[in-house]
């Protein structure tokens, strides 16, 4: 883009999956595009690009957020967590990812990162959800392959595993 209104760049510094990252962005750059195009974190998928499908959900300061509806410039100073950071540094998967694998809770996998990030945030606040509550929590995430059955089962498994690992919760 040539110089003009809206071409001024803004500095962004964010803690992304635990590590500091910097960028200089034009205001209209979406967070999803900063993650994917500039920082190479292509685990965050863009489906509808207007906040209907939930595929691009990431955590901003711990809250599930549609990264197609946030401008990159807005996360300056924030913590951003994406699906790449879920498993941590270890060789294994995050328990939620493990549950998705063992329950066959994905087919094409396009919606999976957004669903995982939504559920991670949800289960943190609601460690003992009912099936209905899981379905409500996932109402903002569209899956076009699975019919949700296995996704809900995986979420219930992960919740149970989480309770077993932390009996005080």
């Amino acid at each position, binding site marked *: 883009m040539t110089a003009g209104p809206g071409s001024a760049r803004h500095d962004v510094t964010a803690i992304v999956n635990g590590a500091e990252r910097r960028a200089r962005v034009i*205001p209209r750059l*979406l967070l999803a595009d900063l993650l994917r195009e500039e920082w190479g974190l292509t685990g965050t998928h863009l489906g509808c690009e207007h906040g209907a499908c939930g595929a691009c959900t990431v955590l901003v300061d711990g809250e599930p957020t*549609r990264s*197609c*509806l*946030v*401008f990159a410039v807005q996360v300056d100073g924030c913590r951003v967590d994406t699906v790449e950071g879920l498993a941590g540094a270890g060789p294994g998967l995050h328990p939620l990812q493990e549950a998705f694998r063992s329950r066959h809770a994905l087919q094409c996998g396009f919606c999976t990162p957004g669903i995982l990030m939504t559920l991670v945030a949800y289960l943190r606040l609601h460690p003992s959800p009912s099936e209905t509550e899981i379905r409500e929590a996932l109402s*903002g995430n569209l899956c076009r392959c699975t019919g949700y059955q296995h996704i809900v089962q995986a979420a219930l498994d992960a919740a149970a595993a989480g309770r077993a690992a932390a009996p005080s919760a």
Partner: protein
Amino acid sequence: MRPAPFEYFAPRTVEEALDLLGRHGDEAKLLAGGQSLVPMMNMRLVRPAVVIDLNRVAALGTVRADAGRLHLGALVRQHALERDGRVAAAAPLLAEAAPLIGHLQTRARGTIGGSLAHADPAAELPACMIALDAVFHLRSARAQRACSARDFFLGLLSTALEPDELLAGIEVPGMPAVRAGHGFAEVARRHGDFALVGACAALALDAGGVCRHARLVIFGAGDGPHPVRAAAALIGERPSAARLAEAGRAGAAEIDARADLHATAEYRRRVAAGLAARALQQAAARAEAA
């Protein structure tokens, strides 16, 4: 889909935000949670030359309760209505409606003021605010004024806000009697979708069980939330189930229901009557139990 270019400002104070709004007025958009504005920008239905991001204005993000009144900063996130005990105590209707606003991700980012200023006719919060007799505090660099929720909503996506005005805060008064109750009912295709029709009610009874305060609002059916005039007829009466069902029907008869892809006008009117009665009955039962 990506938004058209815009100039971006992130003020830290209300004064700074108002100054920017005063200077850029018509060509500027205030960005709060962005859950309605950014989709419209992505689709280029809206192309503001200037975006004034309110998310760093800390003064707009506070919740305060005193003497039964609830003061909500415009930038308070919608999920705070579900989570904050002060909301549940002072305005349980808001806490009950909140989980039905959009989805988890929408509520985490979406703000109370943003929803009100956007004035979608199917949104829950405008209707609840009218039912609760809320007062909105509007500010510009020129002046500040108070506007009742009832006078704020002018129709489809249209409010009393002037181009240089900011909805800064929302004040929800306590209920006027000890025995008060609220009710809420809506029908949507899926959880979190905009309501096809909804209704909310607030009632207060005196010690003898006679209705002293009645509010009923139907939303999602027409161009905006509709405060039902017939609710006033309940005052001075004992709210029997039959009487409340009649008020619901009268309310539905008042609305100018719209037809669209999802429902006919006749469907909306019929469902509105049932939901209005249900919201009133819930409110009455709670008031009687209080």
